[in-house]
């Protein structure tokens, strides 16, 4: 049974790669994820706090045990059973703490119940008579992780992964198939031939199936429990990945004569020295610095694998198949190219390019670490927002540990007294997203999140920031104009864009109201996010008002671009 990684979209960290095919996207994601494995390469150590709320569940017992076993030998990583309600920690493996803990990864592991509605597979002969009847079990594990920096209490990563067994539609190949529970006496169980019953009287068949399911439930759970253990490797692999702590510098790409030739180019040289600690086998990421009418921004190009390191430079090969043509074109066009160890460093550099000075430091009002995750994730995805965790008193333990005298030689002072104070408190109230300024006690805004099935707190938060701090979405340039119609344009927002977002285009007209002149917005078009360019710049396809927007531009009218919230 194979297990595969189901990636939740959209995610701030993979925003660059969403315009490409899913296959290529997954390759890049896997490769870039490798560049982030930083355990045991730093002067600090890491802790995984595993929520024990599911540990007593008989279905989960073997999976928990296997995860604990697999993590036993990982150097620099400590594992503790964590009680989310009482905040108690129970360390496993008795590993001695060698250096201070710099990162804490909170994790919550659950099984997805696929048994309550599990269907019965019926194999029939040519006359329609049942030959075999069996349940085929699909196993699925949901892993939610949150990484918090001990130094600042800042949430630096939130992820949700679902590990699921491949759904198989083929007939069972062998009686020993692990995902199958065979119903030996199916005629007895159904009071007749189940296939015929299903055909002739579906209601009765369904009622009897419910009873059969109930009878076999203990067996089904036992088998599911065995199947869940197969996901332990994938879960542990995710748990061992930690975001880098240090923000690395931008490496400049050194051009050589072959680099403009797409047949010859396969690697790039960049100015990493031994001080940068770049090692052969590690992955680095190539970006292009793009200038849109004075708005500089990073555009993701491709991942590279470091091949050689030297005194003055290092050489890295293209990590994915293809991409040579695009790379050679960039070299020919003398594009400004930079490389980074990881995406966090690239994001920091992108902020520098945008001359972004300060982040908005926010906290979420909630009652537990994994509560209000939709709101917290939405805020975490915004490029200039730092989310601080305030519901984990466990962090204080690690802050106190860093103060121990025995860690002084390990640079523990780097972890001390650098906590981030919350400036804005965000919370949900009666279908609204509300934010309060901690400094003054003022409510800075209240927004209704759009969305039919689930509320989109990301857009509500962006709107709230945009309105409160007057940082509107900026039009950068027209991208495609054809036959008097605007097909697409480039826009920039300090709070970023995500897949599926739509922005309205409005014309501003003056209206005299008493002695005042107030700007009135008249909607003239609609556009869809079509292609990410960087964290804050994206291309939008015009959905409605292609002609009207272009005409308004040509007539010099003032246009504004805003998220549409009814």
């Amino acid at each position, binding site marked *: 049974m194979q297990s595969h990684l189901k990636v939740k979209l959209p995610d701030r960290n993979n925003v660059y790669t969403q315009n490409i095919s899913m296959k290529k996207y997954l390759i890049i994601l896997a490769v870039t994820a490798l560049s982030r494995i930083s355990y045991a390469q730093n002067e600090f150590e890491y802790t995984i706090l595993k929520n024990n709320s599911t540990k007593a569940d008989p279905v989960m017992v073997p999976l928990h045990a296997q995860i604990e076993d697999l993590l036993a030998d990982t150097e620099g990583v400590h594992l503790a059973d964590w009680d989310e309600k009482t905040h108690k920690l129970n360390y496993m493996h008795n590993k001695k703490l060698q250096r201070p803990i710099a990162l804490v990864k909170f994790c919550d592991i659950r099984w997805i119940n696929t048994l309550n509605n599990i269907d019965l597979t019926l194999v029939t002969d040519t006359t329609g008579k049942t030959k075999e009847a069996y349940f085929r079990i699909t196993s699925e594990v949901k892993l939610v992780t949150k990484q918090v920096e001990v130094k*600042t209490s800042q949430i630096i990563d939130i992820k949700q992964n679902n590990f699921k067994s491949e759904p198989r539609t083929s007939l069972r190949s062998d009686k020993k198939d692990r995902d199958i529970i065979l119903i030996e006496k199916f005629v007895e169980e159904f009071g007749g031939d189940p296939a015929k019953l299903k055909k002739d009287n579906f209601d009765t068949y369904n009622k009897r199936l419910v009873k059969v399911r109930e009878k076999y439930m203990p067996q089904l759970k036992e088998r599911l429990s065995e199947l869940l253990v197969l996901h332990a490797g994938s879960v542990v692999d995710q748990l061992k990945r930690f975001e880098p702590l240090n923000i690395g510098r931008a490496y400049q790409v050194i051009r050589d004569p072959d680099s403009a030739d797409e047949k010859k180019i396969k690697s790039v040289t960049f100015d990493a020295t031994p001080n940068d600690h770049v090692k052969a086998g590690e992955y680095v990421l190539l970006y292009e610095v793009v200038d849109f009418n004075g708005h500089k921004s990073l555009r993701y190009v491709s991942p590279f694998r470091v091949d050689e390191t030297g005194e003055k430079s290092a050489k890295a090969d293209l990590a994915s198949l293809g991409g040579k043509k695009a790379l050679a074109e960039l070299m020919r066009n003398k594009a400004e190219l930079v490389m980074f160890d990881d995406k966090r460093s690239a994001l920091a550099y992108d902020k520098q390019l945008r001359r972004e000075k300060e982040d908005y*430091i926010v*906290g979420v*009002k909630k009652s537990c670490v994994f509560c209000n995750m939709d709101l917290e994730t939405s805020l975490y995805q915004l490029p200039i927002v730092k989310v601080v965790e*305030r519901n984990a008193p466990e962090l204080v333990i690690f*802050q106190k540990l860093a103060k121990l005298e025995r860690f002084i030689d390990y640079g523990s002072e780097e972890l*001390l*007294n*650098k*906590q*981030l*104070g*919350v*400036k804005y*408190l965000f*919370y949900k*109230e*009666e279908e*609204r997203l*509300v934010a*309060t300024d*901690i*400094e*003054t*006690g*003022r*409510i*800075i*805004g*209240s927004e209704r999140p759009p969305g039919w099935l689930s509320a989109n707190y990301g857009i509500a938060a962006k709107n709230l920031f945009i*309105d409160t701090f007057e940082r509107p979405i900026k039009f950068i340039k027209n991208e495609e104009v054809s036959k008097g119609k605007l097909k697409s344009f480039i826009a920039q927002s300090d709070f970023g864009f995500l897949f599926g977002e739509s922005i309205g285009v*409005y014309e501003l007209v003056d*209206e*005299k*109201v*008493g002695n005042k002149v*107030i*700007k*009135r*917005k*008249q909607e003239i078009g609609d556009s869809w996010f079509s292609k990410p360019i960087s964290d804050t710049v994206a291309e939008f396809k015009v959905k409605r008002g292609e002609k009207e927007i272009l005409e308004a531009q040509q007539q010099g009218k003032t246009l504004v671009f805003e998220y549409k919230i009814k």
Partner: protein
Amino acid sequence: MKKCFFSIGLISGLLMLCCISSYSQKRIGVYNVAGFSSKTNAYSSLNNQNGSVFGAVPAYCVDFYSNNSDFITIDRKNIYFITFEKELQKTENFMDGYVVEQGKSEGMDYLVQSLFDTDTYTLIIQVFDVKEERVLCSSEKKLDKNFLGIKDLRQQVNGMLLEINSKCFESSIPVVRMLSFKGKKAKELLVAAGKDLRVRSGYKFDIFMNVEEKVGDKTISRKEVVGKGSIAKVEDENFSILEITDGAEVVLAEINKGTQLLCRATSK
């Protein structure tokens, strides 16, 4: 000479203060809803059902005032979190990190308090003037119900708050201009109220004009209602289209005369 400069400085300072205060935003805070019995004329606790429905009223009030540029809404519900966070930031752990400024908490000019009469199903929202220590004004409404229970409570509360706005703070909504008419009847008006005032389609408004009435020696301003209308479309933060439902001819005649028409929300 020094005295003269001092006097000029003092006068100009006072003038500036007057200007600032006359244009400054009003700080408003919202308190929890309380149960009330008109039979016993005493406070009574809300039962679970009423508590879960009417517990939302303060949140609707916060939502109403928080995007209105005439007001600054002060958060009193989360005072515990705010105080906790500020105290936390005073500790050594934040010495080289990021902290907000201490001692900048803001007080309130007005308090909004809502009462629910459990005997008559009437909601009362009142605005209390903190400095004057008196109720400035209030709005009372027997809540509309249907077979499912109370009809859209948010909409009913917003209507009451719009009414309070015009009563307490003289903030009438100006009619900007007429958008369409048929024969002698005005059809649609553009009014200066939009999303920021939490106006929604279907909200009902009185259209009125200010007329001066001589009462003895005094001249008193009277609001003469000339028509009624309901919101057909909310255009943006500041503007909506009002469809006239009553008094269309009078409205057109007044507009043609150049009369400044105004609107006020009506919860009826």
